[in-house]
């Protein structure tokens, strides 16, 4: 088991954003986290990335407890992440952005630069462009390139494919596939069902802080509880 979250809960005051969620990810899997807005996916995701400290529960990475480890310790351990709102280093070039990631396992500049150049090529970006000049789709791509350069074993993607045109989406899906083929395990939070259906074999559905369904994407989209969570059929039935 590469990643294991046991009964993870996070409360902000009285509000229970995540109310006890379990997740087990095997080496080499792509697992999807879906759910309506405010379902607790992002909070759970941030717990996995070490950005948010869970109120209760434990998170193990490769058998080591990382529940209370800092974000930088997560990166060193091999857990990489992207952000829902891209946070590129805007004063730096594309290559320099990726180099910051590459430096994690390659302290010397020339090694880091060479590695970063390969990654930039792989992701189809232009190395000498200033990050400031990029649009949102390229920024998301740059974030992926940057974290990829840091050599993660597990990649956490937080809506990295949202807001893309259909053409860009296909490219992005191909990129995630390529990353997966490099042997990197992926957990992906996504709203776009097309992404989930094509990329993942296993999905967890969040609603109101709980995991309400798990299974293959095909099973999950037919699940009564999932349909209800998304469309609010139960609420409508109650009113009738």
């Amino acid at each position, binding site marked *: 088991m590469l990643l294991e979250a046991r009964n993870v809960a996070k409360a902000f005051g009285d509000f229970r954003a995540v109310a006890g969620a379990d997740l087990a990810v095997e080496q080499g899997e792509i697992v999807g986290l879906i759910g309506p807005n405010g379902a607790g996916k992002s909070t759970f995701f941030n717990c996995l*990335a070490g*950005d948010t400290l869970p109120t209760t529960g434990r998170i193990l990475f490769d058998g080591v407890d990382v529940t209370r480890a*800092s*974000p*930088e310790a*997560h*990166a*060193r351990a091999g857990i*990489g*992440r992207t*952000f829902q709102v891209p*946070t*590129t*280093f*805007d*004063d*730096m070039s594309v290559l*320099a952005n990726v*180099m*910051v*990631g590459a*430096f*994690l396992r390659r*302290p*010397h*500049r020339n090694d*880091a630069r060479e590695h970063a150049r390969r990654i930039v090529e792989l992701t189809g970006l232009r190395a000498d462009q200033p990050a400031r000049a990029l649009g949102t789709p390229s920024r998301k791509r740059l974030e992926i390139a*940057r*974290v990829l350069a*840091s050599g993660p074993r597990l990649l956490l993607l937080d809506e990295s494919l949202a807001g893309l045109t259909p053409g860009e989406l296909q490219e992005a899906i191909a990129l995630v596939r390529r990353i997966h083929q490099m042997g990197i395990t992926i957990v992906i939070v996504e709203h776009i069902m097309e992404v989930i259906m094509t990329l993942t074999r296993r999905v967890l559905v969040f609603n109101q802080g709980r995991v309400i369904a798990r299974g293959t994407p095909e099973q999950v989209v037919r699940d009564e509880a999932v349909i209800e969570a998304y469309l609010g059929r139960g609420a409508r039935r109650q009113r009738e």
Partner: protein
Amino acid sequence: MSKLLAQPASGQRVSICLLAVALVLYPLVFSDAFYRDIGVTFLLAAISASAWNIVGGYAGQVSVGHSMFFGLGAYTPLLLYALWGWPPLVGIPAGILLSIGLAVIVGLPTFRLSGHYFSMATIAVAELIRIFVGTWALVGGAIGLQGPAIARGWWDLTFRGDLPYYYIFLAVLALALAVTYALEQRRFGYYLRAIKSSERAARSLGVPVRRTKLQALALSATFTAMAGSLYGVKTGFIDPDSGFGILVSVQMVIFAALGGAGTLFGPLIGALILVPLQTAANTWFGGGGSGATFVIYGGIIVLIARFEPGGLFDLWRRLAPLLRRRGHAA
């Protein structure tokens, strides 16, 4: 193609060489005491602004309390001389070590803050130290301390005339810039710029943010203390305001910001413009001149913040290609 790429770099190298030659020759050409004094003041300002730049510019941690390092650097050699007659050559390294210690002590709690809160915390610490020093009799209280009046030997670093100081300061400035350049090229420099842009993203990529910021502050404090100690030894006198006063901190910020914070030569360019301006203001307005200096600083802050947050260096970088193109066309 390779020629095209090499051109700006070699152009830059030429301007750096020209600048270096100009700085070496300046006191020989302008041998008048008035001009040499401007030269020494400029170098001192350039050293401290470049030192501030490491943490304030590259890492974007805008300290407005760097006078604490400047003052500590200035006070330590003079205090050790006053107490035990130690020569400044020993006192200066002692002041630098104390400043590094102070940087760690101050940095640990204040780096938990960000943005304006960090700036305000640094002001508060520097002001506390200034007030404390002003009431402590051992370090001269409000009156201050004096250095060796007559040199017992070269190790007292007490010279007649400005020329020896000028070249010592120039050497320290060259060292500060060389160290900054070396950092800029390494992982450390990339990490500083990443931290400036987004601490959260930097941490997610494994950048040890707190440690990197502390190291930057310690290095910045080292050169700021060096500037302070050179000032103290050269002037032969230090008091709470000229060592720990807020104007000392503000000057570093303004010189760096005007030229371009986070660029290698920005602080130097800022000092190159502002020091002569300041001297001119003092000369024109006489005793009331220090007030005019504040007015000019205020105006500059407003103008930089509103129109050119990147400073003159950034402006030049954008304008230079346009001018060159026009030159080619004509």
